[in-house]
């Protein structure tokens, strides 16, 4: 089967620091691919390269067999790649609804919307509230709160809800549950499985091994800026995975 998203030989350097070191990447259609690795291994860097947020110094990327080179995240979004960044990418002073619909606002029907381009605020707020409740974020008291005044977890929830609501071809989640509580993390896992069941492949970066082993179809292990191995969670234990990614053990028989 042809990977839906494929990369070969990606390199990214910042001055003397190497973030991606000739790494490869493959995402198969319809799968949940987990990416694991130490802090600073380069996980965020490589997925940012895949979604246009970082322009790699070297290397090539293919989407559905066609070579692509995104010059900005908007390019990637236009072809249906939706991303939750580790830094969340929110406008702190704007409201929850504004942030969720940033770049794809709803307009009022009829004259007001068509000619005066008036936003349909009630509709956007209702939608936002509903998505957040689905994620179990029932502690948000005012949907008009500025994002900067939200708690860490609430903010992350807004970002996840945004990506889940709009992704169409690939969804990339960079540590989507890091700041979330037990209940909220659970809901995100359910959401991920729900999205997969609609046939949309997902890249999930996470440090939570039980969660990774619960939902992933394949696990990409990243170490020192490159792909070390791809393992099948049914064939390897969590201990194996942790041993590989921390360098305690070198995987055998598996091509990087």
């Amino acid at each position: 089967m042809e990977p839906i998203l494929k990369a070969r030989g990606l390199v990214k350097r910042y001055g003397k620091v190497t973030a991606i070191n000739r790494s490869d990447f493959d995402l198969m259609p319809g799968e949940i691919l987990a990416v694991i690795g130490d802090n600073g291994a380069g996980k965020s860097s490589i997925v940012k390269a895949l979604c246009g947020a970082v322009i790699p110094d070297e290397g090539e990327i293919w989407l559905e067999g066609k070579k692509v080179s995104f010059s900005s995240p908007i390019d990637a979004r236009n072809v249906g790649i939706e991303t939750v960044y580790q830094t969340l990418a929110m406008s702190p002073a704007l409201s929850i609804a504004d942030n969720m619909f940033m770049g794809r606002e709803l307009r009022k029907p009829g004259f007001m919307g068509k000619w005066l381009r008036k936003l349909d605020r009630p509709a956007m707020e209702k939608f936002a509230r509903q998505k957040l409740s689905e994620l179990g974020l029932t502690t948000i008291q005012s949907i008009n709160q500025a994002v900067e005044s939200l708690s860490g977890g609430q903010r992350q929830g807004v970002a996840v809800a945004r990506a889940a609501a709009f992704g169409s071809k690939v969804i990339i989640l960079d540590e989507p549950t890091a700041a979330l509580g037990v209940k909220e993390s659970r809901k995100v896992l359910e959401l991920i499985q729900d999205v997969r069941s609609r046939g949309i492949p997902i890249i999930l970066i996470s440090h939570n091994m039980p969660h990774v082993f619960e939902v992933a179809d394949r696990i990409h292990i990243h170490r020192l800026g490159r792909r070390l191995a791809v393992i099948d969670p049914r064939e390897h234990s969590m201990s194996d995975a942790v041993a590989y990614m921390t360098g305690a053990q070198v995987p055998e028989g598996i091509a990087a």
Partner: protein
Amino acid sequence: MSDSDNYEAVVQSASSEVASFEEHKKGLIGHFHHALHATPSLVPLIVLVASIIVFGIAVGSNFFSAYALTLILQQVQIVGVLAAAQSLVVLTAGIDLSVGAIAVFTSVIMGQFTFRYGIPAPISVVCGLAIGTGIGAISGWLVSRVKLPPFIVTLGMWQIVLAANYLYSANETIRSQDIATEASFLQFLGRTFELGGAKLNLGVVLMLILVVVLAYCLRSTAWGRHVYAVGDDPEAAKLAGVKVNQTLMSVYMLVGFICALAGWVMIGRFGSISPSATTGTFGNIQSITAVVIGGISLFGGRGSILGAFFGALIVGVFELGLRMAGADAQWTYLLIGALIIGAVTVDQWIRKVTA
């Protein structure tokens, strides 16, 4: 720790009500409090009203005459229009030092096109507006594409436009009488009409309409939200899918256009067209002052254009009030300096108690 493997299952039966707490303050004060919290641009409005009252008491009844009160609007119209333009740039975390220069230059263009080349006045006005927009486009391009700091771009533009203005006009003033007889359309925005005993001119009306329209666009259209997002955190806005460059470009072009409108307003207000109008030199500081007094953050993304409008009026009230009270020029400057600091202190204080 026996059933640890399964603790996550418990969440299925979690409560799913949205959290809410009883309201704390009620009644009039509570309402007022909440209104200020929800609409921060009310704060400069309060300061404005307070300063009108204070000056009214200090200066006496002359200050409350229809003539004096409309005079404030008249005197503030140019700065008001420039402040509207400046607000847009400042909301994107930029700054535009060239607003005044563009206004003066476009007014000169409107005049010279009519008088030097004999182009009909309405077409000259359109040309002026187009050139203003064009200058804005150059700045916008340098800021968004070449990624230069707005301060430098517009500082350079300020010098270039001002010098071009003197060179092109050969420092010649076009006299009011000539315009009135030969191309009165140029003075169109200077036409006055009565409204309940007060005399207003079309320039003031233009300013008011402009502020209302921009306030609507910023608050209720996608474009407006993008302007805020770009100013708030350009990196995040880009990642979230806002076309940052396009938004910046549109803002700078619009600013150029509005500055050209201000140029047209200038002709209406002064009658004549003079390349050496001080707006060219001080328009930038005046408009930035209005914007900051109005509570817009110079770091972008926070504040409202209505605030900037009230800010311009506050300065206008101070200036007229002090002049009418007979303070001499240096004392006026000194007191205006002190009053501006005072106004913003009051503003900060109101914000703090209602936070």
